[in-house]
């Protein structure tokens, strides 16, 4: 009974002693051990570096999304892939402002939306001209959706929009390029063949990183949506804001339902528009990252296989070198299981050591990755789960490939082993 109860402890102690023996053996054959584990070291180092790079990229993309707005939805006209409207005229497909009249009453998950029209224009003030300023037609909700409020003057009013008044908002950059006074409110600029009164200033765009075309921002000028619509007949789309990221899918469904009605689509007709939720892009990115991880995992498993064979080889050499020692251990009472355990622990120790060195190497590679300019990998790091997984995998390789040599050792006949030269 006592023997039975103390068994786990004796087992643990034996594993510990086997581990110390293994460390001694590895230390005694340093060069050989390091060469044998090289396959595992390289495998683990590369997979941890790839995981670190992906993790960094993910963090980067996530923060980009966050600054861009995770609640955001883009709604734009699109030809369906099939059905009668597949090859329809653009006039049939395109949006008109009326399609969105009263949308908020039917889409409870949508907080606000702005109709959008974009163009570029030359604009002149006095002697200064900007050849190509970015011109946007917006609704007042745009300020909230994009998080760029009016810092000076006032936003557009319903009257501005309704009457398609020639008023505009500009940014500091535009003001400075046109050499407008520090407070430009009340001044007039010339564009689209008429005079526009400046009624206020808008915050500069946030630095949203490379993913969404940040960086070099053009000079911007904003006019009421209807003003631009009437003047240029532009491509119209809509940006809407869901109440929270959690209801993004509901908001999308509501918008879709509403638009199908307002655009008179029959029940069996496909959509003639797209509603894109940003979180869907995030999911896409996650799927891609998972794909890359899987491919990297495949490559690494090949590397681990090669590494494992190296370990098996060196363990077979070790068993053959220590045949007499095994014979002696058996003669003084080591059970076959004890010998098996000793060699298995040695293989696992060897592999785990390789895994550990591999993780250190992976960390080194990650540090280098972070230093690559413009690679956007400065947030790369090895997550804890990858460390645990790497060590687990190297240990498993040790068990798998150490088993055969260990069984060979355990089955040695003590008499022949002791006679071995």
């Amino acid at each position, binding site marked *: 009974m006592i*023997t039975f109860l*103390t068994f786990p402890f*004796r087992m643990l*102690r034996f594993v510990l*002693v086997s581990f110390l023996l293994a460390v*001694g053996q590895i230390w*005694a054959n340093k060069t050989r051990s390091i060469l044998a584990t090289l396959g595992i070291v390289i495998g683990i180092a590369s997979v941890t570096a790839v995981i670190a790079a992906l993790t960094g990229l993910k963090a980067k993309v996530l923060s980009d999304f966050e600054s861009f707005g995770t609640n955001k939805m883009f709604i734009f006209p699109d030809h369906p892939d099939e059905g009668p409207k597949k090859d329809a005229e653009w006039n049939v497909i395109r949006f008109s402002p009326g399609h969105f009249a009263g949308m908020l009453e039917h889409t409870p998950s949508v907080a606000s939306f702005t109709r959008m029209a974009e163009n570029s224009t030359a604009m002149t003030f006095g002697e200064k001209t900007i050849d190509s300023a970015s011109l946007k037609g917006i609704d007042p909700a745009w300020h909230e959706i994009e998080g760029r409020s009016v810092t000076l003057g006032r936003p557009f009013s319903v009257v501005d929009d309704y009457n398609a008044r020639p008023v505009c908002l500009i940014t500091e950059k535009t003001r400075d390029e046109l050499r407008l006074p520090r407070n430009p409110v009340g001044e007039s600029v010339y564009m689209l063949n008429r005079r526009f009164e400046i009624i206020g200033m808008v915050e500069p765009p946030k630095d949203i990183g490379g993913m969404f075309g940040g960086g070099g921002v053009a000079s911007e000028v904003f006019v009421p949506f209807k003003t631009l619509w009437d003047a240029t007949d532009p491509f119209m789309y809509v940006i809407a804001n869901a109440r929270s990221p959690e209801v993004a899918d509901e908001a999308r469904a509501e918008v879709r339902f509403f638009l199908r009605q307002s655009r008179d689509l029959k029940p069996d007709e496909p959509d003639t528009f797209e509603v894109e939720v940003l979180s869907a892009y995030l999911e896409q990115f996650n799927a891609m990252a998972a794909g890359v991880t899987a491919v990297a995992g495949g490559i690494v498993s090949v590397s681990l296989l090669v590494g494992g064979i190296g370990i098996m080889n060196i363990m077979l050499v070790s068993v053959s070198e220590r045949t*007499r*020692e095994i*014979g*002696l*251990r*058996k*003669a*003084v*009472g*080591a*059970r*076959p*299981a*004890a010998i098996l355990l000793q060699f298995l622990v040695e293989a696992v120790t060897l592999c785990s050591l390789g895994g550990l060195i591999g993780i250190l190497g992976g960390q080194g590679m990650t540090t280098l990755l972070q230093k690559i300019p413009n690679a956007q990998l400065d947030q790369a790091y090895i997550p804890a789960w990858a460390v645990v997984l790497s060590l687990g995998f190297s240990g498993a390789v040790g068990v798998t490939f150490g088993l055969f040599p260990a069984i060979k050792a355990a089955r040695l006949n*003590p*008499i022949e082993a*002791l006679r071995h030269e």
Partner: protein
Amino acid sequence: MLIQLQGITKIYKMGVERVHALDGVDISVDEGEYVAIMGSSGSGKSTLMNMLGCLDRPTAGSYFLAGDNTSKMGAAAQSRVRNERIGFVFQSFELMPRTPAWKNVALPMMYSRKGWAGMRKKALKALDRVGLKDRSSHKPSQLSGGQKQRVAIARALINEPSILLADEPTGNLDSKTSHEILELFDELHAQGHTVLMVTHEADVAAHAKRVIRMRDGKVASDLPVEQDEVASLIPTRRSPLQQAGGAPEPSGGRR
């Protein structure tokens, strides 16, 4: 009766040929005996030694060690018998290199069920018994041949086995060192240990109290040392312990 061999037969198959390494061997050994097993090479003495040490299984026959039939035991149980009841001394010492003497001595304890308590202390005590207390942390490469064999004997003693099995223990030693090692065996016998020694040297066998001669896998003769050919070589000088009368009477003969 400590050891009882009944009709032990061992047949090796060499291709189509069958070699009878042991052919119906019956031997009994009492506790405290000092037995030399002699024979030319190929006589079966090494196979007999392996049988006695539970390192090999007979093709036929039974081996009772203190009443337990070891020839019917599984590998793990045989390991336990080797660990607890048998102490091996080999011709070539079989010490682990790069391992200090006391750890070599303690090796059988590692596989003992009795636990590892006081391992170092027991190892040092065993080294003391063979007169090597001050060499406990030396590695085998730093020891002479005689010292190595003493370490091996200490290792054989550490688990307090019933039998000491020595296979040509002086085969790798010069005559002076051999003499010292044999005196150590004499002393251990005098202290009550059962000693079985395989040798082909008459002067080594003369230290024992009983000589079993093997020929062609059979027991050729089994006589008290005084009646054997080696009688003339019996050493005259006995260790003080034996002179004090600690040695049991040789049993001699088959029972």
